[in-house]
């Protein structure tokens, strides 16, 4: 009995961090069950679903900013494009979810690669502005191409049907989001620990070294943008099939900035940090602050307090809240030691 347990622990430890990701996924999948049992409120599920979707998008942005050293303020536009394409293809064209997913990711990717071409000429603030412009062009497109986008009134879609016959409900869609997130976390982990990941880091750290070592900057910049945009678009598709409604003003600069905040607060170059950041930016106001007395009673106060909280986090953990891990470990270590010395004295 004990031996089997030990083996399991060993397996868990040897497969890190995949095992962590999968356990995280399993915990999340329990949530809809708790909602059905009436233990957790339904609104929590919706909030957490959007946190998870934004985590996927932010992972792409983290790859772009943290690893490749590029910047984008266009994340929201690409995510929006994903939602519109998903809605148009499944609702208007009546094509299956799988085809919609493919097209809704590929089209933004092509535009993302074109953005990457821009990044070869400009950097830093200028690139930020250029990507912002692309995002605004997309948003304007959502408003103006009424025949496809339905203009200001927005567009609707339904829960996805997999393989043409598995109709997912609310819970099924939630589980699908979790599966996508965990899958993407694993793929991202693999990527950043591969030679491509090293090439991206090298490109960011020293362009001269990258070139001298045979890293084609052109290729890797385009690749970074392609991946980041693909993640945004996947996020968009998942959003469309869970929230079931999209409208132009959901995809403004505010969202792009929030996503940037996610990775800075959570931890640049950190996968769990990204998830943590997403919980703080998109979750804390609705899940925690609004439930508190006084803060929760005043309209908008939760968001103000979240702003204050974020400032405090950045003051103490400028490299991301995920680094609180090390401090907690140290604290635990101290605590253990003190306990030991007490017991020795006794």
């Amino acid at each position, binding site marked *: 009995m004990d031996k089997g347990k030990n083996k399991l622990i060993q397996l868990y430890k040897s497969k890190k961090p995949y095992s962590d990701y999968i356990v995280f996924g399993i915990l999340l999948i329990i949530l809809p069950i708790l909602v059905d049992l009436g233990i957790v409120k339904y609104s929590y599920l919706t909030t957490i679903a959007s946190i998870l979707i934004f985590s996927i998008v932010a992972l792409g942005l983290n790859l772009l900013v943290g690893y490749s050293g590029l910047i984008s303020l266009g994340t929201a536009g690409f995510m929006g494009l994903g939602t519109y394409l998903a809605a148009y293809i499944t609702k208007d064209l009546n094509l299956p979810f799988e085809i919609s997913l493919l097209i809704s990711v590929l089209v933004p990717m092509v535009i993302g690669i074109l953005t990457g071409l821009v990044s070869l000429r400009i950097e830093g603030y200028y690139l930020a502005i250029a990507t912002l412009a692309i995002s605004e062009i997309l948003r304007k497109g959502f408003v103006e191409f009424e025949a496809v986008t339905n203009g200001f009134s927005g567009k609707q879609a339904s829960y996805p049907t997999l393989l043409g016959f598995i109709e997912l409900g609310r819970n099924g869609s939630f589980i699908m989001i979790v599966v996508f997130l965990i899958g993407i976390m694993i793929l991202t982990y*693999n990527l950043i620990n*591969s030679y491509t990941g090293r090439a991206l880091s090298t490109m960011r750290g020293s362009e001269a*070294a990258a070139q*001298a*070592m*045979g*890293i084609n*900057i052109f290729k890797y910049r385009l690749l970074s943008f392609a991946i980041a945009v693909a993640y945004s678009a996947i996020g968009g598709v998942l959003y469309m099939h869970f929230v079931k409604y999209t409208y132009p003003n959901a995809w403004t600069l505010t969202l792009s900035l929030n996503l940037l905040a996610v990775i800075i607060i959570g931890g640049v170059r950190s996968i769990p940090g990204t998830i943590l950041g997403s919980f703080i930016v998109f979750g804390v106001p609705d899940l925690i602050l609004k439930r508190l007395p006084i803060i929760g009673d005043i309209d908008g106060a939760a968001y103000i307090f979240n702003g204050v909280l974020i400032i405090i986090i950045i003051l103490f953990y400028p490299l991301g809240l995920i680094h609180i891990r090390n401090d907690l470990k140290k604290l635990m270590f101290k605590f253990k030691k003190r306990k030991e010395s007490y017991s020795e004295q006794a």
Partner: protein
Amino acid sequence: MNKHDFILKIEDLSIAFGGLKAVDSLSFEIKEREIFGLIGPNGAGKTTVFNCITQFYKPDKGRVFFKNKDGVVEDLVGKRPHEIISKGLVRTFQNIELIRELSVIDNVLVGSHIEFKASLFSQLFRLPKARKEEERLRKKAEEVLKYMGLYHIKDQLVAGQPYGILKKIELARTLMLNPKLIILDEPAAGLNDTETLELMETVREIRDKLNTTILLVEHDMKFVNNLCDRICAISFGKLLAIGTPEEIQANEEVQIAYLGKEDE
């Protein structure tokens, strides 16, 4: 007689920045398995020569012939900077260019970037091909680190390592591909005497063991004189003299360039 006993031959190389001629009709030739030093007073254009060879700068005029890994002589001028390493020519930098956020071994692994062939797909899914390739080259990186005496810190981050270690890591990174020619930009700068002596031994050993050629820029004259087989002295981008260390030391023009002219 072998017509091409050189590994690198620079012909009439010139580059100007605005009105300043940083390198002016410079020609020299490096033989295979030679340790060749490029010296000159500050601002003589030494690093610029390096940057012209590795195509970081596009020379205005001149040619850079290099005998590549397959023994074929080709002109490097016009190639893109990232294409150079695949010819068998790798360099270090004057101001260490390492990636702080990566571990020591990962930094060294960047040196064999062009040897990785696994597709993006197989990297994403960690397919056996990608895994095996990573394992094989990681082993090689470990060997290189052992050779350089850095194995014990292989998993530490580069950030925070002392200067002498950083120089060693950068040198280790150049060894991953068994290059034909290694270009070292001020390898001894910032090292103390013991470290400099050690470096001298290492460079010599690398040449002998790996059968490679070394071109280096250095200010430390003792280092250059003790290590190099031949030296090329330049001043204001122009060639002063080429010869053995003794010849260079005795050369009047070189003395003038370094120490100034004596008044009669």
